């Protein structure tokens, strides 16, 4: 591997430690266009979050869009509840839907934004919106929150992928204009070990194979653009990162079987629960952003029945994740974001389903720099007023999370098309910040 010009770059850290220096040598780097304009402005001390900024994000992504009414914004007894009841929580005055009993015990550490609005009512577009904080735009692909974090924060010393998508659907988090290097590492149910991280041959034989590969790669490079690997194929680059992961002790972070039986049980016997436990271990090992997908919330039929099923999966995992982060001293350095791409209609349809509703839905936030036990915004208990009080945009959520991580959302990066683009156009939600 010694001949590889770009060992272990990107989300693994090596080029982060020297990112600024690297960029000064613009022209020789394939990443030259990523010049961070914001870099020239020192982080304004006043703007920086109080205390130490958070270092990681865990995004519990509810694919298909859960109903706010059956989760964190119930309106018990109102005509739009259709029988959904509410329970008290550890946070005084905050009620959440019945079924989330374990989550209720940690609500003192969780804040809710019940008035999120967006203009995207289509799954694909809204998923893009929720993951990137921008609406889809034909001329540029925005990076997901995890890609932004990996690009902005230093991860030196971390030998496993730092941007991870557990149980992804077809919209796994992407690097967008930051490049495919920042795409999330996709993995499935952590019940199985991460596939293919163990070499099938001895180290010596592997080294011999890789030496032979250099001969073949040299033949392929001849006559083709310089920095082919860096700029286009990422072949040896990803191979080096894969190899680094294979030989690292940190790869154990993926292995939840190393956790005590009781801990595993607390997260629930589900792929999602195991994903949350793996996320906890991965954050501990230094990963920057992990998204875990829990699908099936697109309940156009039998809304209540299907929600009850998914909530039973969500409840133990969510509560155990918050408790686990606190136990391991990671809560203050990890932002937890929960939510789907939009909410669901106040009215139940003829098939007892709820349809798409981007006009007032709930996102939950906890940990790193966020206050707990707060509620921002409110929806109409009768479902008549389509506009919630104190509406919050998806971009505001992104901007606030970036701020909590010590990243200035106004930082501008240059897209490949030469257009400066802020990390987020949202406003900070000061009410939620500790």
């Amino acid at each position: 591997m010694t001949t590889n010009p770009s060992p272990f770059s990107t989300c693994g850290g090596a080029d982060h430690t020297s990112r600024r220096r690297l960029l000064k040598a613009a022209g020789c780097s394939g990443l030259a266009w990523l010049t961070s304009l914001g870099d020239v402005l020192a982080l304004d001390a006043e703007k920086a979050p109080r205390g130490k900024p958070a270092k990681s994000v865990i995004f519990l992504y509810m694919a298909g869009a859960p109903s706010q009414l059956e989760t964190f914004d119930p309106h018990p007894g109102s005509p739009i509840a259709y029988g959904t009841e509410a329970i008290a929580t550890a946070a005084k005055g905050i009620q959440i839907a019945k079924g989330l009993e374990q989550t209720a015990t940690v609500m003192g550490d969780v804040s809710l934004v019940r008035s999120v609005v967006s203009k995207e009512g289509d799954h694909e577009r809204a998923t893009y919106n929720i993951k990137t904080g921008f609406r889809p735009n034909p001329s540029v692909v925005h990076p997901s929150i995890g890609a932004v974090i990996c690009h902005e924060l230093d991860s030196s010393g971390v030998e496993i992928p730092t941007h991870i998508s557990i149980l992804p659907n077809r919209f796994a988090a992407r690097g967008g204009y930051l490049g495919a290097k920042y795409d999330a590492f996709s993995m499935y149910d952590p019940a199985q070990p991460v596939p293919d991280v163990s070499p099938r041959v001895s180290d010596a034989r592997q080294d011999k194979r890789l030496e032979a590969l250099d001969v073949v790669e040299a033949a392929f490079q001849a006559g083709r653009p310089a920095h082919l690997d860096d700029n286009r194929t990422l072949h040896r680059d990803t191979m080096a990162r894969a190899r680094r992961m294979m030989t690292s002790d940190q790869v154990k972070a993926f292995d939840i079987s190393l956790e005590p039986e009781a801990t595993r049980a607390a997260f629930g016997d589900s792929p999602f629960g195991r994903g949350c436990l793996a996320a906890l271990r991965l954050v501990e090992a230094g990963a920057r952003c992990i998204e875990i997908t829990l699908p099936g919330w697109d309940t156009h039929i039998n809304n209540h029945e299907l929600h009850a099923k998914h909530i039973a999966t969500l409840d133990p995992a969510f509560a155990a994740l918050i408790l686990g982060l606190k136990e391991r001293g990671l809560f203050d350095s990890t932002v937890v974001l929960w939510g789907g791409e939009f909410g669901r209609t106040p009215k139940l349809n003829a098939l007892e389903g709820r349809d798409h509703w981007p006009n007032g839905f709930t996102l939950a936030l906890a940990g790193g720099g966020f206050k707990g036990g707060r509620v921002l915004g409110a929806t109409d208990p009768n479902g008549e007023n389509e506009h919630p009080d104190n509406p919050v945009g998806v971009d505001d959520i992104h901007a606030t999370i970036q701020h909590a991580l010590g990243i200035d959302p106004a930082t501008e990066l240059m897209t490949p098309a030469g257009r400066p683009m802020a990390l987020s156009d949202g406003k900070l939600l000061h009410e939620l910040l500790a």
Partner: protein
Amino acid sequence: MERAPDSSQTLPTPTRLGPFWRNALFLSLCAAGLGAVGWAYLTADAMPASSLLSSLQSPKSPATAGVSDSSSPDLSAEGKAGSGEYPDLATTLRRVNAAFETQWTEAGLEPAPPAPSLTVARRLSLALTGTIPSLEEVRALEEIPEEERLTWWLDHLFQDRRHGDYLAERLARACVGVEDGPFIIYRRSRFVTWLSDQLMTNRPYDDLVRDLITSKGLWTSEPAVNFITVTANQAAVDAKKKGPDEVKLAARVTRAFLGLRIDCMECHDDKFGDRWKQEDFHQLAAFFAGTDLAPFVGVRDHDQNTYEFRFNGELKPRPVEAKVPFEPELLPADGPLRARLAAWVTAPENRSFARAAVNRVWTLLFNQPLVDPIDDIPLDGPWPGAMEVLADDFTAHGYDLRRLIRVIAASRPYLLDSRSLSDGPPVTDAHYQSFAAFPLTRLRPEQVAGSLLQASTLKTIDADSHILRRFMRYGQQNDFVKRFGDLGEDEFTDRGGTIPQRLLMMNGKVVDERTQENLVLNASTRLGLLSPTLEATVETAYLSIFTRRPTDAERDYFITQLQNVPENRRNRAMEDFYWVLMNATEFSWNH
């Protein structure tokens, strides 16, 4: 967002089959699968590898293996091209090539040299069958005189059922997407098989598209109708009209068949100009107002139904008349709504139709669109010069897809190498963008899977003689494709490799099984045992994995490696050799 509630995907109803029947079905499928795999192992071709190796004694030198004429090899010969079989082909090619040459001169780009014919054969196999050529095919191709190879190879691929199946799958992504759709009324596999049948008979493309737009009946007996039913919303809240979604259909028709993205206008007027109004889109959707679903009958027309929509800034929904957004004179005055729309879409004067097809076929062959994005071709130009020439040719020759493939495959850009000569300056990204060198693109997951399995068997995996084997191949492929990461519909984005892909190739089961010692199945073992010389071993491995001969440096390196191991460890060394080639960039990229 007025339509948001009913424009959504729905969940399949969870209790469709009783648990008993589901289990029974599952078990019987498992049994059938095991049986098939077992049978395939038993009957695995005990082909005489020696016969494939025999022609090694007189290999053509790599230097002369290139296509001799840089512009258009055999087809430029007036004798053949000008006469009956492919009328006007030479003229079209001259015009296409001239358009590119002008563009390159203006951009100051020196085009890459012509690619070796084996490289072109590899590109075509990947594009048309989803695999690389087998060693057997390479040997057969090398028997053909250099100047006839392209035509011979295309004839060969067009006869292969795999080309119908593979192209059908690729085209289906544009027509019906990759999602499962509403299961009760949608059968994606029937649709793909039907499409494959149409491609195998080379049905004129305009005829095919008219069939899709106007199809009626049941999704099971009339496979084309799945184009309509995939959009159906089983759980439509607004129960006035169950079934096909006019908005999704209008979006599919404009994107897939006209190369226009006007579905953004569903919710608003054009924000990037004043070309399109919200009304344009909904007037198109209105052509599907009468398209309905009925029990036992399937898709049918009820043209008295009206389509209503509440436009931005208006208080109430109002009926929308079926109208086309441009060239209204091409729309027949009478007839059922869908038939009128189909006639307008496929009218020879409707240039967007031919342009969209040209761009799609071009993209399937190059893996890089001529106009990017593939389904966003400007209605009023400008277009690359070649686009108009190719669209003219496609229209003038009865929307013959095979001819279109032949024209593009014989054009100068397709025959260029993806590299410069070793002593010249390397090609640049600008070359790739302007097709002044064949673009370097990542292979799709199923192409990598297909190549992996093909490379390890020497003999062609074809649909006719290896049905059972193919079953096995697909069984293995699906898991691989998932892990490798399907790009979905959004399949032409320029992307690099990923860590899971490298892990899968370095340490994965499929590669391991395909390289390890296994006399029945694997080429690596057979070659190690049966090749007359080490030189032949190395060369044969290169031909079956990279579809080329090794460079001198590569040949010397691997011969030395193999020489240095004792006889009893030869198979292990062969495993390593195969592993290295399969883990190289060259194997996973189209070049």
